[in-house]
């Protein structure tokens, strides 16, 4: 496996790498990381390169491992509704016919990056996030050893569920090389019921939607900088079922049905280079966070905000509101000058325990040091 000298394009959030390696298999990746361990190199991982500006820049970077050649579907067992996919595979290229991996793909994002950041979209309401759909994982540890947890069957409680630990770990615990996912059948029909609502009535509308037993796949809200809140509900199923459920929702909410979701669906409300914050809250407190510039999953209590103007002040305010509601406000991405001035993560319960986990998995703190919560 050849290491190439890094070019100008090979950096993580402005921190330049010295070398780049692009392994094609788990075994090659292990060889790369073993050597990196021997040479005490700091390692960063690049998937699609679409979210390298999330979190903080690494404190140190020597070797950039690029997963673009570590791609492809290794197995699709349709009868068992599972698939094994290499980490560098782009999520939006996956095609399992009448089945699908029920993660809403973000453009250009890889499977490994999606798992490492635990990004999610509207349909997390029904299907959960990567953490819930991942049933097995292969990871090359910082010391170069190849390890697996979970397996190829959906139901499995043998050993620790390390897939959960790696999901959302921002590449700080090792290199994800292969993921086994549970798949779902693609629904035969879908409909979206959209309702504009004054903010004051948002809570009542969301409660009404919850009370109807229509089992939505997604309940999203959008609040533009000016104008009312829009709530859009996705139902998926059989043609007859979807028809009835949408009609029931229309009646209950006064909304209108369309075949496709609105254009803002599943997109972050910010543009590249802007400040994007993830806000979470228990369901009944979602309205308290629905300020202008906020969008996201009202059905699960996960919203996204675009901050402009006096960002530190706005962040303080919105974070205080999220914490008061029982949730969090995490800055996902921000321009360098903003990152230097704000606390990206806010309070992190259990941080001491997390540090001990990092110390065990990566005692040399070589993997993406500093990118994650609490300086991990």
């Amino acid at each position, binding site marked *: 496996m050849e290491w190439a000298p890094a070019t100008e394009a090979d950096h993580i959030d402005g921190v330049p790498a010295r070398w780049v390696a692009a392994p094609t298999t788990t075994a090659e990746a292990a060889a790369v990381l073993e050597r990196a361990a021997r040479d005490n190199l700091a390692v960063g991982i690049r998937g699609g390169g679409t979210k390298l500006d999330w979190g903080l820049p690494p404190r140190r970077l020597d070797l950039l491992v690029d997963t673009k050649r570590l791609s492809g579907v290794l197995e699709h067992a349709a009868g068992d509704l599972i698939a094994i996919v290499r980490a560098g595979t782009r999520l939006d290229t996956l095609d399992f016919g009448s089945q699908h991996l029920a993660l809403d793909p973000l453009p250009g994002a890889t499977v490994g990056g999606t798992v490492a950041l635990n990004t999610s979209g509207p349909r997390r309401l029904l299907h959960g996030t990567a953490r819930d759909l991942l049933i097995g994982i292969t990871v090359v540890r910082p010391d170069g050893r190849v390890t697996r947890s979970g397996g190829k069957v959906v139901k499995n409680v043998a050993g620790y569920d390390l897939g959960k630990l790696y999901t*959302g770990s921002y590449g700080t615990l090792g290199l994800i090389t292969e993921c086994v996912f549970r798949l779902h059948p693609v629904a035969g029909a879908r409909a979206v019921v959209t309702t504009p609502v004054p903010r004051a009535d948002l809570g009542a509308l969301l409660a009404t939607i919850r009370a109807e037993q229509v089992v939505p796949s997604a309940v999203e809200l959008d609040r533009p900088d000016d104008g009312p809140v829009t709530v859009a509900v996705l139902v998926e199923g059989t043609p007859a079922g979807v028809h009835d459920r949408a009609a029931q929702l229309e009646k209950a909410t006064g909304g209108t049905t369309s075949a496709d979701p609105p254009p803002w669906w599943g997109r972050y409300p910010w543009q590249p280079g802007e400040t994007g914050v993830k806000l979470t809250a*228990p369901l009944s407190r979602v309205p308290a966070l629905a300020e202008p510039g906020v969008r996201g999953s009202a059905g699960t209590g996960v919203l996204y905000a675009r901050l402009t103007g006096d960002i530190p002040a706005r962040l303080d305010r919105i974070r205080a509101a999220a914490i008061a509601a029982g949730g969090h406000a995490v800055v996902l991405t921000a321009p360098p000058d903003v990152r230097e001035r704000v606390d990206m993560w806010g309070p992190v319960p259990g941080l001491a325990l997390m540090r001990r986990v990092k110390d065990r998995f990566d005692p040399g703190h070589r993997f993406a040091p500093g990118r994650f919560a609490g300086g991990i």
Partner: protein
Amino acid sequence: MSTLGTLAATLRAVLGDGQVLTDRQDLRTYECDGLANHRVVPGIVVLPRDTAECARTVRECVAAGVPFVARGSGTGLSGGALPRADGVLIVTARMRRILAVDAADERATVEPGVINLQVSKAAAEHGYYYAPDPSSQQVCSIGGNVAENSGGAHCLKYGFTTHHVLGAEIVTPEGEVVELGGPAPDPPGYDLLGAFVGAEGTLGIATRVTVRLTRLPQSVRTLLAAFPTTAAAGAATSAVIAAGVIPAAVEMMDALAVEAAEAAVACGYPAGAGAVLIVDLDGPTAEVEAQFAQVTALFETHGATELRVAATEAERTLFWRGRKSAFAAVGRISPDYIVQDGVIPRTALPEVLARIGEIAAGHGVRVANVFHAGDGNLHPLVLFDAAKPGEDERAEEASGAIIDLCIEYGGSITGEHGVGTDKAKYMPRMFTADDLDTMQLLRCAFDPAGLANPGKIFPEPRLCGEIPRKHHGSDAPTGLY
């Protein structure tokens, strides 16, 4: 005084006499869990009444270097709550308060000793329930469910405990009280809650659990179908799933299991069936009706000899009664039995069942099969008579051979009952030394002294060893300064 004697005296002094048991007769009550062929009388039993008492108990154990084991209702089937003679058993039976039911937030917060079914009962008046429904749900505790990542008949559609736990307050193996997860989704940092669920009490003790509540379905349809063979029933199940229908539950029982259930609870299953399927379809009425039509048509084309649809709630309960009582029921047709729990890819069902038949014949034992057919989770019940010389060993061997078969087919050594004491020896057959070593990294991060439920899950006790201490000052996020 012995270490345990001193520890007992200390615990009495801080918790009060009533919370600490040392009388041999009292201790015997706790000598085993649902896996009754493993028995150890615990050194001390403590019944904490709240988190503070639980944390204090753990800290005293740590100070004395004494191992401790958590126990909920003791229904576990892998010896996870098997006590240590040289240790303390911490029983959550006095932590049984439902602290909150928040329908508007679709969640409930409970103490760990709360019985699974009580959560659904408390939520019912709001139109909600707690989805994970192990067959033991009338007696097992939420703390035990969290530790085992328990499933139930309906996890095919609704997932396991791990998908329904939002947060937990835990006492770490070092005696600290830490919040994992929380009232809102996706808390920042590592998903330690996800790692804690299913760790079988080796990463600490859950003292409070916040669970997700699920809206009750608009309608439920239950049907029972008889097939001439398990292979035909398996093919019918596969056809349903291939058609894109995910039923809430698909349970299968073979002829021997049906015979046992019939003897025990007179559930009136079709006589002479080679296999019976019980299927629940639930959800919005229109969807359920559409799926119902699909499933019945598929069952008919796949050779169902009889199809019954539950017309009333009472009938539905009756359909399920045979299945839910199946483990105990085999006691009617065999003096002794082993409950096995393994997983295979569902599509391998016919082949694997044939191989199980061969294993049974080869070992001179009978095997009754009960399983969650939808997700390939097998519960072969190996029947034997311990009074006959050598039969228990042969049954044990047959049971082990079935586990090897699950591994051979790319499945798992346990789908829901956990590894515990019983299956630690099989872990190296499913995982490499490096895989197990990585799991130890997590364990050591939580429990460097190795005092939390030692001897479970992992085949050999391992010392954690020091790690080079890092100074975290340099790790502080630059944004803070």
